[in-house]
């Protein structure tokens, strides 16, 4: 795998005074650092447990884990307010947890049980929460970009100042409807933040092999949509960019693109042996850029918390995840009558 020509996570040590859209980082206080740590850890542990339950046969079909990319959604979510909408593709468990959806409901949906968010009828890739303004969970690559643009259309139509955040990957970024949506969003100045989670591989195809222009932040250029590359492994950098992007959208300036340079540690899905990249590459990201370890190191260095305090957080997170797994294994399957419900209102 060729090193990225554009700024990599490694080369991005920016001074704090820079703008969030140009490599700046947010200055997190103690409680924010701890919140970021806890949120990211929850996703990490949840996904590890999901992988384990998949291995045990409790979770079927496709299961795409978010491990490694936690800083993206956690940093973004910290910059949003009530009523802002979130939509994403099929690697969606992290987004749901970050939106405040219950671990139990998400895990029970993964196991196809009745108290899952979709009563077991959606599964890993298709989950929603009207209450938390989470609009899925979409299994068709790129579809969420047009849908997310429609959520932003609704905000503009209603004249509120809410923002829609549409997440998609470097693979989806090559889909035609993405550009159809960019065009309309720019034309109508829709309040939508397009988050391109560039984890370098669309399933097994590296960006270098699939994308003529692999600097995805430039993909909105022909529509006049500003775009920025962000260190997606550093939650402070994500947050700093998010704050500015949200302000841009809320003030009526139209869409904005943030390309999050990130990395997934696991395969594309559970049954992907990931032979298209070297173990060294994965190991290097894990050991040098892990989003959680970065926060942890800062917390300890700045004495925001002790090792024991962090262990206590870890324990609480593990308890939440263990509880969700226990719930998801023991919750009954949906009643057979569910087969014919929710087709039409």
């Amino acid at each position, binding site marked *: 795998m060729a090193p990225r020509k554009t700024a990599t996570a490694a080369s991005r040590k920016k001074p704090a005074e820079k703008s969030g859209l140009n490599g700046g980082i947010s200055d997190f206080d103690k409680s924010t650092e701890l919140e970021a740590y806890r949120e990211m850890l929850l996703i*990490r542990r949840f996904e*590890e447990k999901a*992988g*384990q*339950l*998949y*291995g*045990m*046969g*409790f979770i*079927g079909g496709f299961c795409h884990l978010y*491990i490694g990319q936690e800083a993206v959604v956690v940093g973004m979510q910290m910059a949003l307010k009530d009523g802002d*909408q979130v939509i994403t593709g099929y690697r969606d468990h992290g987004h749901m947890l970050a939106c405040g959806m219950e671990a139990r409901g998400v895990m029970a949906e993964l*196991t*196809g049980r009745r108290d*899952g*968010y*979709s009563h077991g*009828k959606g599964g890993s890739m298709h989950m*929603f*929460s*009207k209450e938390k303004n989470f*609009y*899925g969970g979409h299994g*068709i690559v790129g*579809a969420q*970009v*047009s*849908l*997310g*643009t*429609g*959520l932003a*259309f*609704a*905000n503009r*139509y209603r004249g509120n100042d809410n923002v829609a955040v549409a997440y998609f990957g470097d693979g989806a970024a090559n889909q*035609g*409807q993405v550009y*159809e*949506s960019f*065009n*309309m969003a720019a034309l109508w100045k829709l309040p939508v933040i397009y988050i391109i989670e560039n984890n370098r591989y669309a399933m097994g195809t590296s960006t270098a092999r699939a994308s003529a222009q692999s600097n995805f932040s430039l993909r909105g250029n022909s529509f006049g949509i500003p775009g920025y590359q962000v260190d997606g492994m550093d939650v402070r950098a994500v947050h700093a960019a998010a704050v500015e992007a949200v302000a841009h959208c809320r003030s009526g300036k139209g869409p904005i693109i943030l390309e999050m340079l990130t990395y997934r540690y696991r395969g594309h899905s*559970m*049954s*992907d*042996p990931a*032979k298209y990249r070297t173990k060294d590459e994965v190991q290097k990201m894990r050991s040098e850029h892990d989003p959680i370890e970065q926060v942890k190191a800062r917390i300890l260095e700045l004495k925001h918390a002790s090792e024991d305090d962090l262990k206590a957080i870890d324990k609480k997170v593990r308890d939440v995840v*263990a509880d969700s797994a*226990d719930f998801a*294994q*023991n919750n009954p399957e949906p009643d*057979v*009558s569910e*087969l*014919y419900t*929710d*087709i*039409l*209102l």
Partner: protein
Amino acid sequence: MPIDILMPALSPTMEEGTLSKWLKNEGDKVTAGDVIAEIETDKATMEVEAVDEGTIGKIVVAAGTENVKVNAVIAVLLEECESASDMGKAKTADAAPAQAEKEAPAEEPAKAAPVPAAPKPPVANTAAADPAIPEGTEMVATTVREALRDAMAEEMRANEDVFIMGEEVAEYQGAYKITQGLLQEFGPRRVVDTPITEHGFAGVGVGAAMAGLRPIVEFMTFNFAMQAIDQIINSAAKTLYMSGGQMGAPIVFRGPNGAASRVGAQHSQCYAAWYSHIPGLQVIMPYSAADAKGLLKAAIRDPNPIIFLENEILYGQTFDVPKLDDFVLPIGKARIHKKGTDVTIVSFGIGMNYSVKAVEELTGMGIDVELIDLRTIRPMDLPAIIESVKKTGRLVTVEEGYPQSSVGTEIATRVQQQAFDYLDAPIITIAGKDVPMPYAANLEKLALPSVAEIVEAVKAVTYRL
């Protein structure tokens, strides 16, 4: 408590595999995410990662062991402060293989409950009837075009969340002038010209509907909606189900459908059968101006995604429309266009044009036809058809779409299942010919159904040939 490390399944179909290599030894400390072993299946070699922190207490299955069953214990992980002597103790609940075997969904199918019956379609004709039109109501001669525009305007006046988007719907006043005057009345916020990007604006419409608005998405023709069919089917039709009823898409996709005149294969196709295949959609295809108005108003109010199939040739035809403040018709209800006793013809949309003329000819021959206008293709008003067939014993269906897997073949299947004993002749399904639409005038005419074909079919099923 020690934690059992189990042989993982790497895919939904994997039952066993080879434990090819251990990367950690007994006594090694591991943290979550560390690769501890490699497993081989016939498809791939995969790494097994530790999911908890601890020390490898015991390796139970040696490297190189083949045919290790999924969920078999392959090693034991000791947590902090545990020693090897703790290993005999109880395992954590979620790692217990016995429970996994008992509860794993993959094991379930054999024991699964029998498939519940689909909700029974009503045997009697219980669908809501057309509202009675009060005596003395003025009937106004209206084109289908005007009726559609009036329906949208009335609903937009009544509900601020209703808006229309599509190509040329605003400033141009509609490619077929269906949206004439709407921009002037409702302004550009609610009458939205889109770029020529069907896939994209269909998705934007569905997203807006998921957020609670009531979009009407006009396709310049349904032929172009093929670009958008993924958003229509995968996003609009399935979201209510996939979200367990939390959110759906109250949206109307409308526009001209089927052959116009001399526009060739890519612009002349009927999608009634296509969309009628999809659970989660309702498919409406009106013939008269009154039905166009009453059903479009119903469609806009309906909380589900609707495919509303119009026809360019019908746009200019004039029908009586009752002058009422709020004329709304029920979705899913056929209308008996003409009562009769000898034979049933079922048609819809432009097919009614041929059928009405055929009925006139047949009446002259002394054949008393019952003509049913289906109006809604999905949900289909089968009781109305069955009731008629029980009376006449004979059935001919008429549509412009392709013959294979057509609306007519669906009707024929269901009628023979539910009214076999009442049939006195084989059902004849008249459709467009099994060819892409040709451009040449003579060939195009041949490719479409004709009045003569209907007359012949009716004579055949009534044994008058």
